[in-house]
C-alpha cells in the first residue's frame, strides 16, 4: 500500500505548478550562473590570474550559489510536502482513501516516500547540473562532489520529514511557514554556536549543538560546504579562526554519530507523525 500512495504522491507533485515553476526557475538560475562563471573564467584568463586563484575564486562563488540553492531546496521541500496530509484532510480527499483497508501509517509513509523521492531527485539533479555547469565553464571540480550531493539530499529528506510531521496537525500554509521559521532559527543558532566556539562561550556552543540536534539541516549544510571546499581554503580557514561563524565555511565534515543521529531523527519524527495522525479525526 505504501508504494501505491508514494506513486500517487509523485504523480501529484509532478502535476502541481509549484514544481514546474521551480524547475523553470532553477534552470534560469543555472543559466545565469553559467554566464557568471564563464565571465569569471574569461576575466581570469585575460588578466593572467593563476589557475589556483581561479579555483579558489570559483570554489567560493560556488559555495554561495549552492547556499542559495540549499535555501531554495529547504523552502521547496517544505511547501511541496506540507499539504501532504493536511491538504487531503482539508479538501476531503482523505475521507474516501482512509475508508479503505489502509493503515494511516501506510498513507503517511507513502506520502513521505513520494515527496522525498521527488525532492531528492530535484536536489541531486539541480546540484549536479550546477556542478556540471561550473566544470564546463571554469574547469573547476570541488573535492567531494558526490558527498556534496548526498548532504544536499539528506538536508532535503530532513525538510520533507519536518513538513510531513507538521502536516499531520497544522494547515498546509501554516505548516510551511512554521517549517521555514524553524530552518531560519536553526541556521542562526548554528552561526551562534560557531561564534560561541570562537569566544569559548559554552552557552552559545550549547545552543548551537542542541539546535543542530533538534533540526539537523544546518549540520548537514556544513557537511555540504565542507565537501565543496578546496584544501587551500580549509588550510587558510584553519589559520583564520575568525571565519568559524561564517555559514559559507565549515572546518570539518559532520561526525559519524551526527550522521547516525540524522537517521534516528528521521525515524523518530516519522514515528511522532504517525502517532499524531493516528489520533487525528478526518
Amino acid at each position, binding site marked *: 500500500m505504501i508504494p*501505491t500512495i508514494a506513486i500517487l504522491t509523485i*504523480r501529484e507533485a509532478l*502535476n*502541481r505548478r509549484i514544481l514546474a515553476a521551480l524547475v523553470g526557475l532553477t534552470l534560469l538560475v543555472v543559466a545565469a550562473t553559467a554566464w557568471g562563471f564563464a565571465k569569471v573564467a574569461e576575466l581570469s584568463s585575460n588578466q593572467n590570474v593563476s589557475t589556483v586563484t581561479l579555483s579558489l575564486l570559483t570554489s567560493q562563488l560556488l559555495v554561495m550559489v549552492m547556499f542559495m540553492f540549499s535555501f531554495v531546496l529547504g523552502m521547496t521541500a517544505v511547501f511541496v510536502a506540507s499539504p501532504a496530509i493536511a491538504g487531503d484532510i482539508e479538501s*476531503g480527499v482523505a*475521507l*474516501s482513501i482512509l475508508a479503505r*483497508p489502509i493503515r494511516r501509517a501506510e498513507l503517511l509513509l507513502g506520502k513521505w516516500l513520494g515527496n522525498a523521492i521527488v525532492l531528492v531527485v530535484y536536489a541531486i539533479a539541480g546540484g549536479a547540473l550546477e556542478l556540471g555547469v561550473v566544470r564546463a565553464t571554469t574547469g573547476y571540480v570541488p573535492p567531494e562532489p558526490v558527498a556534496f550531493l548526498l548532504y544536499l539530499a539528506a538536508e532535503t529528506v530532513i525538510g520533507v520529514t519536518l513538513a510531513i510531521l507538521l502536516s499531520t496537525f497544522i494547515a498546509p500554509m501554516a505548516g510551511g511557514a512554521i517549517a521555514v521559521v524553524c530552518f531560519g532559527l536553526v541556521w542562526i543558532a548554528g552561526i551562534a554556536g560557531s561564534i560561541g566556539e570562537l569566544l569559548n562561550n559554552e552557552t552559545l556552543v550549547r545552543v548551537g549543538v542542541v539546535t543542530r540536534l533538534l533540526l539537523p539541516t544546518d549540520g548537514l549544510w556544513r557537511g555540504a560546504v565542507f565537501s565543496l571546499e578546496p584544501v587551500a581554503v580549509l588550510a587558510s580557514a584553519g589559520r583564520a579562526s575568525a571565519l568559524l561563524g561564517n555559514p559559507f565555511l565549515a572546518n570539518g565534515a559532520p561526525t559519524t554519530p551526527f550522521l547516525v543521529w540524522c537517521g534516528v531523527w528521521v525515524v523518530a519524527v516519522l514515528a511522532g507523525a504517525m502517532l499524531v495522525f493516528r489520533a487525528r*479525526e*478526518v
Partner: protein
Amino acid sequence: MRGAASPAIHTQDLAKRYGKTVALRALTMTVERGEVFGFLGPNGAGKTTAVKLLLGLAKPTGGEAWILGAPLGDLATRRRIGYLPELFRYQSWLRARDVLALHCALARIRRDRWRGEIDAALATVGLADRADDRIGTFSKGMQQRLGLGVALLGTPDLVLLDEPTSALDPVGRRDVREIIAGLKSRGVTVFLNSHLLTEVERVCDRVAIVDKGAVVAEGRVADIGAGAGVRVHVTDLADAERAALARFGPLETSGEWLRVRGLTDGAIPDLVAEIVRRGGRVHAVHPERATLEDRFLALLGEEKPS
C-alpha cells in the same frame, strides 16, 4: 457478533463528543443484511458523525459498534465496504478512470479484475464517455456520480452513502434510486444517509430518524409513516361496542370523534360498516394520510408548513 448471520451494522449507545459539543448522544440501531436502511435527520443531527464512526474515520467517545460482524476499525472488513462521503472530493488532476484504479488498489482488488470493475462502475454511474477526462473538468454532479462509482468497486457487502443525491439533478436522483435498487437485488446492504425524505421513502426498507444525536424512531417505512388512519364522527355507539373496534387498529376517542390508526385504505368501508352494524351512527369520515415527512416533523416537534 461475528459471522455471516450477524447484522450488517449494529451499534449500542455509540457516542461522540467534540469537547463540550455532543455530536452523537447514544446511537443504538441495527441494520440487517441485504436491506436498504435510511438514516434520517435534520442537519446537525449527527448523521455524518455516525457514518465516520462506523468507518473508523473518527473515534467514538462511548458505546460500541460492529460492522459486518467485526468491531469498528477492523481493516479487513473495510475491503467489503463501499463509501460515498458527503464531502466527495477526488484528485482533480486525475482522470476518472485513474481515480477508480486508485481505489481498486486501495480496496486490494486483484489486478486482473480492475478493468472490468472500472468499466462496470463507469457504466453504472453514467460516466463511461467521460472516463478519460480529468476530474478538474467535472461538474459537482459528475463528481458525485464518480464517488458513487468508487463506492461500488469490488462488489462490497455494505455500501454507505452519505447524502448521495445532494449535487444531482432529477435524472441523477432517479439513476441513484435505480443503482440502490440494483444493489438491493444483489443482496448488498445499503446505508443511506439523507435528509431528503421523499428519496428515502421511495428506496428504503427501514429507516431510523435521528435528532440531536439519538434515534427518535426506527422501523419499516410503512410503519413509521403509518400515522395513516381515519377519524370518524360517531354517536350512539356503546362503550363495549366501541372497544370491539380495536381489531382495526389502535383507538383514540375524543368526544364524539373516534380515531383509528394504522388503517389501510381498503379497511375504511369495513370499519364504517362495522360501526353501523354495532348500532353506531356515522356523521363524518375523515381519512388521514401521514407521510414520512409528517412523522419526521412531528418527531422533531415542528409543524409542517401549510
